[in-house]
């Protein structure tokens, strides 16, 4: 139990982990993350890996859209660029997996800066439509540049290995995904303590005032695009090494929308929100699937409704959250936490 925030030194005020309670629960979380793979089955581990990868991508999108306020409908394309870069580096040049992670990120960041360049002249809706065009064009390139991307058939990637230790199943890959997620989340949390992160928020809240305060809008918007697509590229690299094949069908516009849905449901501009959103959007289809499985015991045709039902629920989640809880799951979490903060001695 934690009562109030009483600080007597600047060091305490600036501390990363503000209280013993926070340290305790974070410790518990890390222990939980470390123990989880030994308890969970293959399917659960498979979902955990996919969720982890989604978290990395969603944190990236949240930096761009949630914090800096630049809407991107092309995030899946950047994940795709990361995936293709990694696949090419591994199959053509035989680079080791760990080296591919940052390289895939850098390559995605490079294209992110190119796509972000029009933000010099436009914002809001127009920028959003420009990123939509980028999504369509990248998708076309993935599909049609046979010589490089293998066209529709895609590229097969051998199982990755680190120092000769092969990561060929869900269990082993978890020990790559989890640390990457932890590093990315920590870095993103700390980003908002730096000049760059605060500049992003200033730009989102009021671009004119940000410029007046000496923030170069264009430069910082490009930083936001670069950072966001870097993380997307890292997620893509993880993804291709986990699934072991990359094809154009994996990065459609719908996937971009799914990432946007994650950060909206989770909470715009909140790192914790990206995590909640990614987990939530992965769990909901699974819950639907098992619910329909139960129903199909009674009426065998129920499974046929799975895909359309998932589409409807996906849309409903976005709409309902935007109408009733625009700050997402992170805000709900905060309210619950605040309620228990002084519990049971509220007064």
């Amino acid at each position, binding site marked *: 139990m934690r009562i109030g925030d009483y600080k007597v030194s600047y060091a305490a005020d600036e501390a990363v982990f503000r209280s013993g309670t926070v340290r305790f629960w974070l410790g518990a979380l890390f222990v939980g993350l470390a123990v989880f793979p030994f308890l969970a089955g293959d399917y659960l581990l498979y979902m955990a890996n996919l969720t982890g990868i989604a978290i990395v991508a969603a944190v990236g999108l949240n930096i761009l859209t949630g914090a800096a306020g630049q809407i991107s409908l092309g995030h899946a394309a950047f994940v795709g660029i990361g995936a293709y870069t990694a696949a090419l580096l591994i199959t053509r040049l035989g680079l080791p997996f760990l080296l591919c992670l940052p390289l895939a990120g850098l390559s995605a960041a490079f294209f992110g800066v190119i796509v972000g360049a029009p933000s010099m002249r436009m914002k809001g809706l127009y920028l*959003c439509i420009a990123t939509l065009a980028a999504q369509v064009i990248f998708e076309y390139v993935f599909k049609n540049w046979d010589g490089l991307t293998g066209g529709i058939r895609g590229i097969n990637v051998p199982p990755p290995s680190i120092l000769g230790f092969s990561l060929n199943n869900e269990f082993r890959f978890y020990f790559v995904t989890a640390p990457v997620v932890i590093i990315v989340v920590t870095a993103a949390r700390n980003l908002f303590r730096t000049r760059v992160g605060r500049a992003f928020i200033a730009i989102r809240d009021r671009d004119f005032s940000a410029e007046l305060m000496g923030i170069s809008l264009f430069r910082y918007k490009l930083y936001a695009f670069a950072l966001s697509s870097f993380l997307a590229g890292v997620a893509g690299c993880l993804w291709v090494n986990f699934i072991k094949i990359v094809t154009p069908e994996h990065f459609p516009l719908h996937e971009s929308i799914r990432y946007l849905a994650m950060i909206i449901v989770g909470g715009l501009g909140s790192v914790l929100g990206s995590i909640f959103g990614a987990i939530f959007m992965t769990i909901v289809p699974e819950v639907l699937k098992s619910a329909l499985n139960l129903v199909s015991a009674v009426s065998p045709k129920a499974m046929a409704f799975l895909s359309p*039902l998932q589409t409807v629920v996906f*849309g409903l989640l976005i709409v309902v959250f*935007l109408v009733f809880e625009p700050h997402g799951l992170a805000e709900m979490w905060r309210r619950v936490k605040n309620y228990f903060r002084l519990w049971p001695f509220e007064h």
Partner: protein
Amino acid sequence: MSFFLELVANGVAVGGVYALIALGFVLIYKATSIINFATGEFMMIGAYFFYTFMVLLGLPAVPAFILVMACSALLGLVVERAILRHMLGQPTISIIMVTIGLSSILLGLAELIWTSDFKSFPPLFPRAPVIIGEVVIRSNFFWGFIIAMAAVAAFALLFKYAKVGVAMRATADDQMAAFSMGINVRSMFTVAWAMGAIAAALGGLIIGNIGGIQPNLGHLGLTIFPVVILGGLDSIAGAVVGGFIVGIVENLAGGYLHDYVRGDVKELAPFVVLVLILLIKPYGLFGKQEIERL
């Protein structure tokens, strides 16, 4: 030369339909400043309404046509009142995402109600192709174009002369002034959504008549973005001109570049145009210029 003319003629025919759908989009944007990502799904639902009335209920074409308009108007109205009304004054991203969520809901519902099987209308027009000079146009394209143009003209007249149209223009121009003139601005939002839905549904009906209907017909809605950006998001004339230009460019690219570039150039071309427009003249040919230094 006749190949060129044929491509242009087909481009104009398709462009007319694009113009109509883009009109539906612009109507909503102009009145409410909402970018409607569900335009494509309104199209698709409109086509399914027509299918239901004509094929499943066996009504003749004209009453079915009128019922489609009524039902789409109702759909637009319900959507506005139930969802978009809550989003007034929210940031752009929320509004965009709400319409994206809406499109997902409509798509899923269509699959639930009509299944994802391919459906087609009974033949509505004489099958013989229409021949103008040396250009041959498929009859569905030709008649679709005629209907689209008639609808665009009807909307234009409505805006110019009808009381509701004038009130809508006034609302789009200045909400405060419209309020003080006794115009019910909120009901204008509803009317705009109803009309936008009608325009999109008519477009969907024409396209469904050309190529059959499927729930993912709505993906075509994406092609509307190049059209409206080219014309200017808030310009009705722009929507029409943009529709024709995109239709023609798309067909020319499909006809001439097909041998040189891999894949579906026809679908890519509008987006290349889109990028160029955004780089050169972001507010389109006729859009209102909001000069802002970024």
